[in-house]
């Protein structure tokens, strides 16, 4: 026996240590040196799965049925192998939408339904509250055993369990409900929970080592002696192949596998408190390893206790404490008690945070907001106050439950009953993550039916077995209707009550979920959320910031920015609201923008972090005029989307063209640059160069430089015209005079090559309204082309100007080699020079494309007729009256 003050002092010292650790970790988190951003800490913190029910209950279970304690841990081991697939998706979704509880998650999937959120919260609350009571009972009975006191016999104000409960409420508030935005992680709380996981593991292993090697000569001796006892030998097997309750083993494994994802505290630690999804890789084996280690000594302790005390003489659930006490090791007993305390407190703390978030967001806040609808006052402090109140209330209710029903069957068996309650979330949650067809009505129907059957087949029997309902109800059914007997519903017998309940409830749940969902097509909002959930892994947002990821597909809304600001201020506080809006405006790069769908959406996401997505949805809907989405709207949106896709494709091809153009330009620029550099280097390396040679090189450099600057000018010109930035100085021009002027300008070049030029033009042509310099540029370009390709000495070039009522046509014909048919189309493209390579150095390859751009700018067209060997004829036509068109 230990003295009560000593045990209490140790307990409170341990809790104070938790405060210290949490405080330290919170500080580290604020400095940006997070303790919990670590895969090992994350995996340890998931050890919250092992509660006092594990710590004491596993030994009890093993003492009565051998290996049957194991499925509860094999299930999570298997479940964790899916972490990288399933959990990662849940984390992505939750982070993107600031989802902070499992009720929020499910409600959000089905169009942010408030009814669904409330139902999930209710199920969680009913399922979890007794579980919290069980933890308090474990603490109380451990305390009683250790100190030899009569336990809960005294008046309530002398019960130290009450004070432990209140201290836990304090801890939970201090480290779990200090901020409003619960998508900010609870660094301190997570660090404390990870530490608790370590403590309970070490304490349990210490007791195991003590039993195996301190009391006996090793596990071999325990098992050998147990095998020799006819009452203990069956605990080492499964009752032989034929008697093995395969269905029950399977059901327990499945149940535990679902619970490890669906218990509110598991969702809190796995999803909400996750700092980095890469930690899931470590988790997928480290947490199973933790489970294996904490279970390694369960069987030896159970058998050792049975051997020591004799079976049926002592409560097997407290072997962990009673064995060290019986062997006069009070220190170890105290350590074991602290281990049990850590298992119980860890569960209580996290469950309280998780359930309080749900209750305040999905039950309390909607009611409070409805009660004071229309009053515009600031309620930003309300969610936090509500959450804290709920935490205290939850712990006090748990304590009350334990005081009233402490010894009842209903409490002892509650562990698995709780598991079965939260397992009802599975169809709606996992179905919603992988099936787009699930609807709100389907989820509601499934959950309601599953919950009702769970209550009928598990909860009511447990109450009846506690003596609070007539036993005849179990044996003969309500009003003597045998078909409705809770544990043999519709005559289904041959299963234990848990498997029986799980079978019926999940069958009805999943069946109704699918059937009702298929009864009608999802609404616009449901379909939009379905898309966001099912396709969450395909989002562009590979980084996991909350801004990333797809915007809602379906969202239309408009509202005044004043209303939005008031709404934000109401829930987030004036300062936060101002910061949020200013932030948004800055990111948009503008003044406080008009509220568009994106602002509304962001505000809703922020509010969701504070008051839950369903309440946020309702709050935003109250100020933003929102039209319900008809199927037509969705179709139109899809149309818009495909339009956007087409535009995107177009952009992509333009992008490729631009790339091609750039590489051509660089190539063209490099050619003259290379020769300039080559000649310059030759002259530098040979100072004694012949002056004539030197002069020739300098001439070449000058010529190449000219070509280079011409090229640069033309590229700029081209870019200007293409982008629509070119200036067009339109004036009235006389085309005949312009043609004559152009021929005159190029006459020297033709003469030098012995080419005769003939001009055929009517005496009078109507005036044209265009940019004189640009048209001249086109003419000069065609003429210089002709000069290049007409044969030297004997070349003939004809320039013909014609005018009709509609347009003016100008043709330049030469008697050169002509353009081969396969090249005719290409000459108007950038950097595609016609003719053979010998002619290349003289041109830039941009003349014809620019000319064509100019002609097309005035609504005209440009062409080339050529028969190889008989010369080429370039021509263009300009309409007299043309609307200027952008090229």
């Amino acid at each position, binding site marked *: 026996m230990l003295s009560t003050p000593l045990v209490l002092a140790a307990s409170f010292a341990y809790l104070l240590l938790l405060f210290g650790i949490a405080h330290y970790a919170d500080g580290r988190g604020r400095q940006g040196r997070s303790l919990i951003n670590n895969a090992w800490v994350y995996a340890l913190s998931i050890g919250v799965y092992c509660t006092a029910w594990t710590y004491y209950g596993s030994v009890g279970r093993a003492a009565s049925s051998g*290996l049957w304690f*194991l499925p509860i841990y*094999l299930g999570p*081991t*298997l479940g*964790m*192998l*899916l972490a*990288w*697939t399933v959990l990662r998706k849940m984390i992505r979704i939750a982070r993107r939408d600031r989802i902070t509880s499992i009720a929020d998650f499910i409600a959000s999937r089905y169009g942010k339904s408030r009814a669904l959120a409330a139902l999930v919260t209710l199920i969680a609350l009913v399922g979890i509250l007794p579980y919290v009571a069980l933890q308090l009972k474990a603490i109380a009975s451990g305390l009683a055993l250790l100190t030899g006191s009569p336990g809960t016999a005294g008046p309530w104000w002398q019960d130290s369990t009450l004070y432990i409960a209140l201290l836990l409420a304090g801890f939970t508030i201090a480290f779990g409900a200090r901020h409003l935005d619960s998508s900010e992680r609870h660094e301190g709380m997570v660090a404390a929970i990870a530490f608790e996981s370590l403590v309970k593991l070490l304490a349990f292993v210490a007791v195991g080592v003590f039993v195996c090697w301190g009391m006996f000569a*090793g*596990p*071999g*001796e325990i*098992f*050998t002696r147990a*095998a020799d006892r006819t009452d203990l*030998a069956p605990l*080492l*097997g*499964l*009752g*032989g*192949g034929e008697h*093995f309750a*395969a269905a029950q*083993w*399977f059901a327990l*494994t499945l149940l535990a596998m679902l619970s490890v994802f669906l218990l509110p505290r598991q969702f809190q630690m796995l999803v909400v408190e996750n700092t980095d999804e890469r930690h899931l*890789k*470590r988790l*997928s*084996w*480290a947490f*199973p*390893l933790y489970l*294996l280690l904490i279970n*390694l000594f369960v*069987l030896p302790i159970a058998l050792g206790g049975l051997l020591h005390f004799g079976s049926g003489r002592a409560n097997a659930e407290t072997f962990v404490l009673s064995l060290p006490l019986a062997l006069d090791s009070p220190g170890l007993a105290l350590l074991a008690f602290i281990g049990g305390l850590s298992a119980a407190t860890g569960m209580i703390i996290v469950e309280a945070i998780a359930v309080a978030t749900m209750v305040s967001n999905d039950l309390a806040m909607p009611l409070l907001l409805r009660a004071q609808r229309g009053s515009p006052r600031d309620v930003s402090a309300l969610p936090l106050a509500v959450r804290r109140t709920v935490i205290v209330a939850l712990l006090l209710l748990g304590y009350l439950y334990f005081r009233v029903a402490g010894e009842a069957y209903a409490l002892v068996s509650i562990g698995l009953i709780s598991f079965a309650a939260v397992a009802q979330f599975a169809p709606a949650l996992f179905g919603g993550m992988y099936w787009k067809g699930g609807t709100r009505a389907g989820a509601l129907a499934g959950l309601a039916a599953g919950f009702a059957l769970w209550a009928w087949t598990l909860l009511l029997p447990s109450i009846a077995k506690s003596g609070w309902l007539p036993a005849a109800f179990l044996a003969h059914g309500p009003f003597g209707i045998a078909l409705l007997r809770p544990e043999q519903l519709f005559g289904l017998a041959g299963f234990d009550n848990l498997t029986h309940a799980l079978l019926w409830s999940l069958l009805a749940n999943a069946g109704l979920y699918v059937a009702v969902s298929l009864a009608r097509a999802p609404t616009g909002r449901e379909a939009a959320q379905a898309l966001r959930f099912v396709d969450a892994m*395909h989002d562009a947002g*590979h980084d996991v910031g909350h801004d990333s990821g797809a915007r809602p597909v379906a969202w239309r809304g408009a509202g005044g920015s004043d209303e939005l600001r008031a709404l934000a201020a109401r829930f987030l506080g004036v300062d936060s609201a101002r910061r949020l809006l200013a932030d948004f405006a800055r990111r948009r790069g503008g003044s406080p923008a008009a509220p568009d769908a994106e602002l509304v959406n962001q505000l809703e996401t922020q509010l969701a972090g504070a008051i839950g997505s369903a309440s946020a949805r309702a709050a935003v809907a109250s100020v933003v005029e929102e039209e319900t989405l008809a199927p037509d709207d969705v179709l139109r949106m899809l149309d818009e989307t495909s339009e956007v896709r087409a535009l995107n494709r177009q952009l*992509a091809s333009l*992008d490729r063209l631009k790339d091609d153009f750039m590489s051509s330009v660089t190539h063209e620029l490099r050619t003259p640059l290379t020769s300039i550099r080559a000649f310059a280097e030759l002259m530098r390396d040979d100072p004694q160069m012949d002056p004539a040679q030197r002069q020739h090189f300098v001439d070449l450099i000058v010529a190449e430089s000219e070509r280079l600057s011409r090229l640069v000018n033309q590229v700029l010109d081209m870019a200007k015209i293409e982008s629509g930035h070119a200036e067009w100085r339109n004036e009235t021009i006389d085309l005949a005079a312009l043609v004559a002027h152009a021929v005159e300008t190029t006459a020297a070049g033709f003469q030098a090559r012995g080419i005769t030029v003939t001009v055929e033009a009517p005496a009078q042509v109507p005036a044209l309204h265009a940019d004189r310099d640009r048209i001249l540029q086109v003419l000069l370009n065609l003429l210089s082309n002709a000069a290049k390709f007409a044969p030297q000495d004997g070349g003939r070039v004809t320039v013909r100007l014609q005018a009709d009522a509609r347009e003016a046509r100008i043709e330049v014909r030469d008697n050169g080699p002509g353009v081969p048919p396969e090249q005719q189309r290409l000459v108007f493209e950038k950097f595609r020079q016609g003719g053979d390579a010998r002619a290349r150095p003289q041109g830039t390859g941009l003349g014809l494309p620019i000319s064509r751009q100019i002609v097309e700018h005035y609504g005209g067209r440009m062409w080339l007729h050529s028969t190889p060997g008989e010369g080429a004829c370039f021509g263009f036509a300009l309409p007299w009256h043309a609307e200027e068109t952008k090229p």
Partner: protein
Amino acid sequence: MRSSKRRSQPATLLRQRLLALFAAGWLALNFPLLAVWDHPVRIGGLPLLPLAVFGGWALLIALAAWIAESGADD
């Protein structure tokens, strides 16, 4: 523009390996394979069935650790 297609691949190697291990674990730690070990035999003083269950469990964890930490990404 030219974003990689890698992201939208439905099942990567790591995920497939873990899924396969998941299936193997379900089979190994359930009826009827579990019943294979259900004999009153002791190895080094330790009964066969618990030894097999814990051994299979440990093997599952070791394989998971090997797969998850082997550096395969995504």
